[in-house]
């Protein structure tokens, strides 16, 4: 007994004197927690000299709040996941992040995972500070059964087709063609206006950060605002659609992320079988043969500059992300598409895709899913979109052109 205690003490001494510890925070999500728990355990067993001290991001109002507090108090993690674009931009501007391309083997890993196109969306001042870990394309869910009752075998693709089915289906104050707007929170603009803009413009950015202006005051922006306006004025959509409008048949369709798959399967098993997935709607002029781009609800991980062992931290990340089996385990456990360009073609995922048709459809859009603009003013801009673009159109306080001009002017002021 005494001898065992002695050995433990010696090991503790050796580890504290020569071992390296890396503090790693991940998203406070039970499914992701299970994934990381297993992997970290495996790494720590195989690498006694580089130990990962893993925990979830501490409880706070939001992950960003917890991370900020930790940085301000000098107790920041070395690696942190769950970083969205706007927050990444803030951390980059404050010079808190390590440019990952300066670490050995970065481009090899990107190439291996076919992520070249994906990381371009995360480029900031010519550097790559964020390693995207999952990318959720936002797609339309339609009630196939109700569409068939109306005489349609496939979901609508263009705005005109949506007008047509909406006119047939809508009953004032009862039923509506489509859920056009997702909510009033600033992040809802990612899923509606920005998503529609990516679809209409072939994946072009809605902001020109170098010239500090919005880019959507063009034919695409005009078609989207006219679409919103027409849908609200004709009562083909509504501000308040009540609880679970898609599953209750209040609307025929709406934008959804892949995180809703498991939930819907459990809560509305009868309706779930009738759900049909399609890309976001596009203006009538959008070419039939072109792929439709969509918004990527994507989060990444970063290495903070305060990290003492940057190369070791990167070694750990390379160990995780160079093994395709870990991606498969991630998919199986979280149902979130990992950020890699070969999801639809890599044999590792074939079986899973064959068994999970919904996931396969989401995965097929990963190459066309565009992340949001990397700006520190994300919240201000998207709040302004709610107040001066979306709500005026909803409540008929402004026409499409007036609202569009107003928001473009306001974004100019915010970015300038």
């Amino acid at each position, binding site marked *: 007994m005494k001898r065992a205690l002695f050995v433990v003490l010696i090991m503790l001494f050796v580890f504290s004197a020569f071992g390296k510890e890396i503090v790693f925070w991940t998203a406070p999500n039970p499914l992701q927690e299970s994934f990381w728990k297993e992997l970290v355990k495996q790494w720590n067993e195989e690498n006694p000299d580089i130990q990962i001290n893993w925990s979830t991001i501490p409880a706070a109002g939001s992950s960003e709040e917890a991370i*900020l507090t930790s940085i301000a108090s000098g107790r920041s993690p070395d690696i942190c996941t769950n970083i969205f674009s706007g927050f990444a931009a803030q951390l980059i501007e404050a010079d808190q992040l390590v440019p990952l391309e300066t670490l050995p083997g970065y481009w090899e890993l990107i190439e291996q995972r076919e992520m070249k196109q994906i990381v371009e969306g995360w480029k900031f001042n010519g550097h790559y500070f964020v390693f995207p870990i999952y990318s959720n394309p936002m797609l339309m869910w339609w009630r196939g059964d109700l569409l068939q009752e109306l005489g349609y075998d496939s979901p609508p693709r263009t705005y005109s087709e949506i007008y047509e089915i909406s006119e047939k289906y809508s009953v004032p104050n009862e039923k509506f063609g489509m859920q056009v707007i997702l909510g*009033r929170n600033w992040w809802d603009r990612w899923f509606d206006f920005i998503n529609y803009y990516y679809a209409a413009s072939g994946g072009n950015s809605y902001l020109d950060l170098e010239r500090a202006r919005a880019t959507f005051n063009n034919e695409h922006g005009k078609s989207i605002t006219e679409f919103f306006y027409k849908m609200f004025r004709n009562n083909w959509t509504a*501000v308040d659609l*009540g609880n679970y409008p898609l599953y209750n048949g209040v609307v025929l369709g709406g934008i959804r992320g892949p995180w809703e798959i498991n939930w819907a399967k459990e809560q509305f098993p009868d309706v779930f079988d009738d759900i049909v997935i399609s890309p976001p709607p596009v203006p009538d002029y959008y070419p039939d043969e072109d792929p439709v781009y969509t918004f990527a609800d994507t989060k990444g991980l970063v290495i903070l500059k305060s990290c003492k062992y940057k190369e070791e931290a990167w070694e750990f990340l390379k160990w995780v992300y160079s093994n395709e089996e870990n991606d498969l385990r991630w998919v199986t456990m979280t149902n979130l598409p990992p950020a890699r360009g070969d999801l639809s073609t890599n044999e590792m995922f074939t079986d899973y895709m064959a068994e999970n048709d919904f996931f396969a459809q989401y995965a097929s859009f990963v190459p066309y899913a565009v992340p949001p603009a990397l700006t520190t003013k994300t919240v201000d801009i998207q709040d302004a979109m709610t107040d001066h673009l979306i709500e005026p159109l909803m*409540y008929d306080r402004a026409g499409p052109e007036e609202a569009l001009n107003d928001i473009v002017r306001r974004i100019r002021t915010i970015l300038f």
Partner: protein
Amino acid sequence: MGLKSLRRIEATKGWSISVVYFIYTAIFWGYPFVWLFILALSKWNFLTPRKFIWFNNFVKMFQDELFWRVVLNTFNFMLYYIPMVLGLSLLFAVALTKIKFFKTFFVLAFLVANVSSGVAYSIIFERLFAINGPLNKFIYTLTGKTIPWFSEPQLAILSIAMMVTWKFIGYYGLILFSGLNSIPKSLYEAAELDGATGWKKFWKITLPLLNPSIVMVLVLAISLVFGIFTEPYLITGGGPMKRTFTFQMMVYTTAFQKLDPGYASTLAIVAALMSFGCVILTRKLIEKEVEYA
């Protein structure tokens, strides 16, 4: 033992008892309080070094249209909430004086709302008031119409005022109930002998003698209006048209989403000053000296 050493022992005892409180107050009240004023005069984003900018945050605030929207929202909310909560709490208190049986049960039933989790009941109300929720379904069967509780700007304020009223009826009602109990019965008996009716007794005796309790409820309710956060944050997100955007929501989003704790501190100071101002004004206008004899 001399008088001096006795005094010293007494002083040591006193200090050793109160020092815990002083240290606690210094850490959890004094330090944040001083820091609040430093922040209000600074530009900072939690990450880069803090810059001293004097009163620029205050100037920015008075030019900020969102700040004025929030001021209007606060008074708009007060306009619905104060009469509603005061009237219903008074009704509850009067009802309690009339109840002979199960009084404790009724008191506890109303107090449950006060101790309920804000997050939990906000979600319940959101479901209840939804356009296809049970309340609207009932209204629809009666009238053929639905009420957009959270999507029409003025109705959204009223709906949140109703929720907060529900939460505080039990608490304020108990304060008023204790006020009612302290009014001597002999005053009512004397009034009855003089031929006073029920209403007359209420207006001439109950209401004037209940003044201290009413003022207390008003002070609590006014302070609460400046501190509302959970309900609008969870249900309406500050909309529609920013009509339910409150001071606390603005402070929170400015500090932690827009990373501007300096401006958020300025807003917090001004909200506190406005709240104190309203409380002082209410006391000046309503508070009266009350003697039961």
